[in-house]
């Protein structure tokens, strides 16, 4: 069975080439066979997946179905799943069984999707290498000595290794796009507000956005249109109608104006990444696209601004993990203060603790104006940069990550270097824009991602450009050798 295309799988299911149960068993077998070396899954829900698959098969026989009916999928372990362990990659929630389904989970289930399990992630989505997970690091299928990126590293590795055709992720500063780039798959983060955050355990509420990791822009469009839309349970979800993304992919890109920000051309970019990107741009120009030099002058401020805003919100969002109602509680607390102190110290890992402390500091009396307020001003400037750019261009393109995948442990001792790895994705998050990362070649044998950024609620155009590019190239179909279906 070829997991490279959801459309192909959907056709196979309808033709009766295979059943959803067979497809689900195939994925479960792949997980069984390969996940020990990748650590992409925290929980595999084999029994309920097979039951859901049989239900989907019944629906398929009855004929009335959605394109995703019977398609297996994995959820990042940040989405609450009713009755299923939901850890957020943390010891704090090591034993937390969610009492309800996130809106994303509900919507996909209503479309007949079969949940295979929950994927590994950086603890509370804080990290760019998936090394901060309490459940251990995830490994990159292209080279298991390397990181898969983060924080949706488990979802990325699972899709890249062909364990599942598609997985959900979340993106706060690049957590869908960067792991997609580092594992050679397609990742799409929609506009802030496009997908409901209800049931998605919050890291930084004003930045968190659910996304999808899969093998092509066409697959991303299909899944995104099922996930997206206003949700009355999330006040920040947009009341805007959701276009049928999968119906708007075709068409040429002649006359497309592509913005190339001067600030994305930095000396830190790996040469192989630059070369792959240049070749990709050329192929778009060959299709009639036009390259336009633009300025995003406040780009260098995006990482510092992000590392004020995101920790500030996280310090407050994570206050509910206090050992009182759910989550880790220390043994034999002496008193209330001891309960708080030890439950939280034991339950949170180093990166989460670092961000809670940073966030608490920047919100403190006497520092609020200098840090939090200042960062919000910078955020407004970054958004204004993008808005002026979109007055002249249709999309903005650049690298997703300055380098290909790096070695496990290479940056864990130096958080700032790790943070700077997200320089190209963070500004987009601060501005709440939609962006995709699509595979655009290799550098030293490792996949390189091209980031396509659109204006607010212009996912259709981003997906169309990505789709056109994927019709011209086959980078998105490359598989890490050790995980090819016949391997």
């Amino acid at each position, binding site marked *: 069975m070829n997991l490279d295309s959801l459309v192909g799988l959907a056709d196979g299911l309808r033709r009766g080439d295979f059943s959803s149960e067979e497809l689900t068993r195939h994925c479960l077998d792949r997980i069984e066979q390969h996940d020990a070396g990748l650590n992409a899954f925290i929980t595999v829900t084999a029994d309920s997946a097979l039951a859901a698959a049989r239900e989907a098969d019944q629906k398929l026989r009855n004929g009335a179905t959605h394109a995703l009916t019977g398609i297996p999928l994995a959820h990042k372990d940040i989405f609450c799943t009713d009755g299923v362990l939901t850890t957020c990659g943390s010891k704090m929630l090591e034993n937390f069984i969610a009492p309800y389904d*996130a809106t994303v989970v509900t919507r996909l289930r209503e479309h007949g999707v079969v949940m295979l399990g929950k994927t590994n992630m950086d603890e509370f989505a804080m990290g760019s290498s998936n090394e901060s997970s309490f459940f251990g690091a995830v490994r990159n299928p292209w080279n298991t000595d390397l990181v898969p990126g983060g924080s949706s590293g488990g979802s990325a590795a699972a899709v890249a290794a062909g364990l599942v055709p598609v997985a959900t992720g979340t993106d706060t500063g690049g957590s869908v796009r960067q792991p997609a780039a580092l594992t050679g798959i397609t990742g799409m983060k929609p506009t802030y507000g496009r997908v409901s955050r209800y049931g998605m355990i919050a890291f930084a509420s004003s930045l968190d956005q659910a996304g999808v990791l899969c093998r092509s822009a066409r697959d991303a469009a299909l899944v995104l249109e099922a996930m997206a839309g206003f949700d009355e*349970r999330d006040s920040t979800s947009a009341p805007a109608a959701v276009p049928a993304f999968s119906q708007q992919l075709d068409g040429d890109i002649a006359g497309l104006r592509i913005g190339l920000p001067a600030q994305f051309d930095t000396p830190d970019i790996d040469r192989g990444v630059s070369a792959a990107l240049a070749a990709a741009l050329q192929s778009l120009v060959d299709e009639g696209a036009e390259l336009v030099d633009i300025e995003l002058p406040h780009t260098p401020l995006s990482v510092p601004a992000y590392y004020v805003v995101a920790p500030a919100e996280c310090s407050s969002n994570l206050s509910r993990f206090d050992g009182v109602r759910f989550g880790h509680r220390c043994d034999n607390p002496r008193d209330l203060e001891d309960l708080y102190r030890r439950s939280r110290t034991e339950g949170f890992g180093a990166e989460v603790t670092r961000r809670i402390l940073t966030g608490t500091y920047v919100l403190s009396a006497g520092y609020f104006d200098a840090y939090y307020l200042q960062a919000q001003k910078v955020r407004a400037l970054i958004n204004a940069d993008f808005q002026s750019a979109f007055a002249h261009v249709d999309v903005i393109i650049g690298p997703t990550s300055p380098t290909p995948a790096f070695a496990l442990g290479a940056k864990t001792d130096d958080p700032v270097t790790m943070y700077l790895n997200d320089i190209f994705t963070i500004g987009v998050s601060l501005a709440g824009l939609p962006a995709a990362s699509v595979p655009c070649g290799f550098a030293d044998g490792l996949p390189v991602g091209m980031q396509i950024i659109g204006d607010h609620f212009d996912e259709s155009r981003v997906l169309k450009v990505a789709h056109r590019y994927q019709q011209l190239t086959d980078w998105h179909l490359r598989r890490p050798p050790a995980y090819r279906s016949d391997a």
Partner: protein
Amino acid sequence: MSWEAVIGLEVHVQLATNSKIFSGSATAYGAPPNTQASLIDLGSPGVLPVLNRQAVLMAVRFGLAIDAVINQRSVFARKNYFYPDLPKGYQISQYEIPIVGAGHLQINDADGNAREIRITRAHLEEDAGKSIHDEREASSGIDLNRAGTPLLEVVTEPDMRSAGEAVAVLRKLHSLVRYLDVCDGNMQEGSFRCDANVSIRRQGAEAYGTRAEIKNLNSFRFIEKAINFEIERQSEVLESGGSVVQETRLYDAARDETRPMRSKEEANDYRYFPDPDLLPVVIDDATIADIRAALPELPDAKMQRLQSSLGLSAYDAQVLTSNKATAYYFEALAAQLPGHEKLAANWVLGELTAMLNKHDLDEEHSRVSPAQLAGLLQRIVDQTISGKIAKDVFEAMWDGEGNADEIIAAKGLQQITDTSALEGVIDEVVEGNPKQLEQYRQGKQQLLGYFVGQVMKATAGKANPAEVNRLLKIRLDASP
């Protein structure tokens, strides 16, 4: 040298919505612990708040009633602190931009002069849950039924100069929120609570003294006692050469004193910042206009009208309008007794109030409705019964014996106005009291009252007193 008190208030008004401010859970009081706590109230991972529109409309209604600035864009903020009955580790409140800005209230001071009290602001926020410390040996319980209950926190300027004025302001606010139907006003259940900021300064001084905040005030009586205790305490401190410490103090009603709270509980830096889960609250002109148009007549306006168009005294008008239930009862009653509003007022303030007090009820729960009472007062007006008999009929009505006419008929209480029937009784009385008749005729005119009393007694109070007077005079003054 004498001291002047300076008092400001923070009043927590629990809004009378059906559901909580950010979740669909019920807000009813007294349910078993944690039966009205949804995943949102519990702060379960991943849940999000959704603002209750009703709470916003009630806040605007209150704002318009105190003639306040309505901020058409207000912002919810997070107030961060750890406490077991605060499930999320932060309270959602409004900080920099509250929904209601500056407004004002009018009260009468001790000398009866009108005084304006400035309202600083009123903001929406969620209530916390309740910690229960005394039910288990080694642990505390948490009841989150109250968590997420909508509150409107009303903050005044430090414009009050005595405990009495502070209570007058609170009574005024209490009356107002009930007129507006935004709060049930139940102080025992905590629907209307108050903290008081109290400082003192030398009479005539400009600068404020250091203030203490007194918490936990849930009755008008305790508020007055607590503030007076605090004024006394501070003046003793200052007069003995000490200085007042800025602190939060709890009022202990059992000991009638205020005590400092542990300083640890105060050392919070709340790290306020705008809540990213909620959009700014935007209220358009049309919504404000609709709310304004639907405002009921407010107590001050009603008081004026009762004086000017019904001719009631300032005192009666003030008492009748001091709370919504009384005012609405009176108006329903008076509407059925045109021209006899004073009689209606006397009955509401007299018999009805006494009966309600005796049974600890308010007018809304009176066992005699305005229509029933009107039926009774009609019989006084048309002289079917006397005012005195009416009181007995009222008691019978209260006890559920029927309406006024039924009771009057059943008990034969109809006034005797028939001249011939009265003349017979008068003859009997006059003839049965020859000594008194002799004295009367010798000039002791005040004995008329004695004869009237005898006639009333003989008729069991049913004789029409005016008619008895008239006929007696004729009979007594007639030549023997």
